[in-house]
């Protein structure tokens, strides 16, 4: 018996993921939640709040403080028929578990010739602008999207958060699920009883527009929507695309948009070199070469380690940097 909310509710991303986890656990007794402090505390961000009370300690597991152990034991649980949802407490703490994710989780289905499936979801709150100390503000998504066998997705709003977590849990492939922690408290209306309007592995046009295309994901979608609002005041119409899935990368909406606008600005918090933006730029060049009016512009974090919090706003892409990049696409 759980207090599953129903109907249309105004939820922030934390509550939306919580509701999605709750629904997944109700629908499938094999779904487990495991991680550091996910039980009684409900997670340091309270994403798993109340789940242990309602589903018990066997299904919501407070683990020892060891990320490789979280992922490695999740592999074993999955081999036994369970569907573990692992929480990594912060982005920068995933690396002790990186070997298990890359060498074991990602490859098991392939190396077994398809006989063994690992339906594991690895939730990672990521990104900066929260004034944190080191290792609490990073964006390591490209280091996972580079690995065959993993799916990598990220939500930008409560509605997507609610559905994408459930879709990720239902998938038989392992999924790394990035949560935009600086947007955790953004609220929106979510119909908890409806159906998702998009498959997990597809991008969404967050705002239609006609003059230039801006692509982003996770925490940067809101930044880009704010930039589009500012651009609209200046009479310029930006189309904003939320990529949502980084592996596989669904760029059909981006191609369609760039063929109309001829201009693309790609925005992410992660470092620039070999980031998701580099892949997007390469593919757009391949697919939309004759439509491009300007080179693809990237607005990203710089190629430095994540800096001290007092300068992180200068490190992170913001509205002005996005608009500057849009201006550059009109300078050619």
């Amino acid at each position, binding site marked *: 018996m759980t207090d599953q909310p129903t109907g249309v509710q105004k939820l922030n991303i934390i509550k939306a993921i919580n509701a999605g986890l709750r629904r997944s656990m109700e629908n499938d007794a094999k779904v487990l939640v495991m991680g550091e402090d996910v039980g009684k505390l409900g997670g340091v961000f309270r994403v798993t709040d109340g789940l242990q009370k309602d589903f018990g300690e066997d299904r919501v597991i407070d683990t020892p403080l*060891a990320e490789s152990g979280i992922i490695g034991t999740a592999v074993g649980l999955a081999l036994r028929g369970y569907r573990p949802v692992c929480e990594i407490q912060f982005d920068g703490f995933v690396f002790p578990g990186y*070997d298990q994710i890359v060498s*074991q989780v990602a490859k098991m289905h392939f190396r077994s010739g398809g006989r063994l499936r690992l339906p594991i979801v690895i939730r990672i709150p990521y990104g900066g602008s929260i004034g944190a100390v080191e290792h609490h503000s990073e964006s390591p998504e490209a280091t996972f999207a580079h690995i065959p066998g993993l799916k990598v997705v990220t939500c930008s709003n409560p509605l997507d958060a609610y559905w994408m977590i459930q879709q990720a849990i239902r998938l038989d492939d392992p999924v790394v699920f990035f949560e935009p922690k600086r947007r955790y408290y953004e609220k929106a209306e979510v119909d908890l009883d409806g159906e998702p309007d998009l498959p997990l592995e597809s991008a969404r046009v967050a705002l239609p527009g006609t003059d230039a295309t801006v692509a982003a994901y996770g925490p940067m979608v809101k930044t880009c929507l704010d930039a589009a609002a500012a651009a609209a005041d200046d009479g310029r119409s930006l189309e904003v695309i939320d990529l949502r899935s980084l592996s596989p990368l669904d760029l059909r909406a981006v191609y369609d948009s760039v063929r109309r606008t001829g201009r693309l600005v790609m925005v992410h918090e992660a470092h620039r070199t070999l980031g998701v933006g580099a892949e997007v730029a390469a593919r757009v060049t391949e697919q939309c070469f004759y439509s491009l009016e300007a080179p693809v512009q990237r607005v990203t974090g710089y190629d430095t380690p994540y800096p001290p919090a007092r300068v992180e706003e200068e490190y992170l892409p913001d509205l002005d940097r996005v608009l500057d990049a849009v201006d550059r696409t009109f300078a050619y």
Partner: protein
Amino acid sequence: MTVETAAGDTPPEPELVQLLTPEGQRVPSEHYDPLIADITGDDVRSMYRDLVLGRRVDSEAVALQRQGELGLWASLLGQEAAQVGSARALRPQDHVFPTYREHAVALCRGVDPVKLLALFRGVDQGSWDAVETHFHLYTIVIGAQTLHATGYAMGIQRDGAIGTGDPDRDAAVIAYFGDGATSQGDVNEAFIWASVTNAPVVFFCQNNQWAISEPLERQTRVPLYRRAAGFGFPGVRVDGNDVLACLAVTREALQRARDGEGPTLVEAFTYRMGAHTTTDDPTRYRLNAELEHWKLKDPIERVKAFMVRGDLADQAFFDGVEEEADELAVHLRAACRALPDPTPTSIFDHVYVEPTPDLVAQRESMTAHLDSFEEEAAR
């Protein structure tokens, strides 16, 4: 060597559980004899057969590698008793997480040895049915499988498959690893996890004294079995070249696990008589005298001596096993050479459960590229 503990006291040298001396004499044990009281002459003969066939698979594989038929092989020579003794303690529902050297365990679990050869030939990365055989795929990253074993054991707990007293239901997991692996974080994390969750898992460490070129003292200052105490579960050191002792000790540990009493660390004290793998040259780092010393403790010879002493087998039996091994060897050679190479485009088949659009496109691209050569040749 005596080892000083941090507290400065000198613990007694560890006792090695041994039920068969190297000369094949049965050592009585009040504690362990009841654990193998049901073992008949047939069982001993059957274990002898497993030991001999295990060694023959191994020597044939080494030869096939030398002939260029395999890319690599990791020899189990010297570790047959540790593997057969522990594997014969398993029930069908128990689950095995091996390293890449558990060829004799694989045989005992009914895995076709040709499938082991296929992996080392480079045909696939493990084609046996890990669910049906309850023998997981080989794991090459050292120690990673101990966490998988522990997680699987946590699943058994959640399935209510321990402590019911039903011998067909209660299940345990055994994780194999070596002395080198005990230095890995994953192994230590697995010990912690198993301990705090009381998971039904047996950690079976084959201490073969060498991690490629590094001797045991590069990995530890205390006997490995004693590490278990620090994690809060029992550890036992067994003569890893004594198949009966390995059987008895593993049976006890597995039953503790199935009864819901938690993990055990078994240190099977043995010796890697061959090279680490076929690419290794042990003459660069160890003395031949050491190998000669361990040859006197050969795991197969002592069972044979025991059987002869006890009139458990006659020459016709030993000849029959040799003949069977010869036939197996002939079969392995032919079957290995007959293994078909995978088709190049098959690499795209199982990256994900359903192929992604990118992979479909890349497969088409590879196909077109390969076809272009055939078209050129046809011209």
